[in-house]
């Protein structure tokens, strides 16, 4: 049975995150540095949205084009970026909208997983599993950044 608590690594010699997870981590940290450097005077809300975008971007870039959800996220991020440059809207790109609750569970899942609408049931289940894995890793990563970066930790 898979545990969702910390330290999935039984071997103490291997780093906490595997090589591809390190890639996500470095990508995300680099994005954070960029946000910090380029938006020192912006509001917490605006910075928070940029950080959220950076989180989904690092996930999607690291998963690459091999997955429908990452392709959908990458497309969304680029599309929204182009629109933002023109229209100056401030909605966080790449973040799925909240769905209504009147749909069937499978349809609701399709709305939550990027690229899910119109997907057949089997592909949806596979994509969901991969998306959940990457999303929960991203959460763990962000949590460890918070833990390390705070003055007294958590």
């Amino acid at each position, binding site marked *: 049975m898979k545990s969702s608590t910390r330290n999935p690594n039984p071997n103490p010699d291997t780093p906490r995150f595997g090589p591809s997870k390190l890639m996500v981590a470095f990508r995300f940290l680099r994005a954070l540095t960029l946000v910090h450097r380029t938006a020192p005077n912006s509001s917490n809300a605006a910075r928070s949205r940029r950080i959220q975008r950076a989180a*989904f971007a690092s996930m999607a870039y690291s998963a690459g084009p091999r997955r429908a959800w990452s392709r959908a996220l990458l497309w969304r991020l680029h599309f929204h970026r182009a629109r933002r440059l023109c229209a100056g809207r401030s909605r966080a790109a790449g973040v799925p909208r909240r769905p209504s609750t009147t749909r069937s*569970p499978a349809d609701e899942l399709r709305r939550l997983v990027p690229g899910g609408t119109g997907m057949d049931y089997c592909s949806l289940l596979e994509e969901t599993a991969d998306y959940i894995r990457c999303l929960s890793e991203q959460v763990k990563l962000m949590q*460890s950044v918070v833990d390390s970066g705070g*003055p007294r930790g958590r």
Partner: protein
Amino acid sequence: MSSRRSRISEEEIAELLSKLQSLLPEARRRGTSRASSAKLLKETCNYIKSLHREVDDLSDRLSEMMATMDMDSAQAEIIRSLFRP
């Protein structure tokens, strides 16, 4: 594509569903037996929504932290922690 779909068996779907179930945290697995795929899908949706919320909250916290912290030393500490077992 549609010919492939007709060859996909109940077994494969059951396997995919059980893989999904194993990804849910233990607290969410209650009542999501194989017999009720609707329940499992619902729990999966709830789990994804809660993960999105966590990303949201953590982004807020990171944003607040960023205003006050010394980015360079924090980065060094973060990278060290990534390599810690």
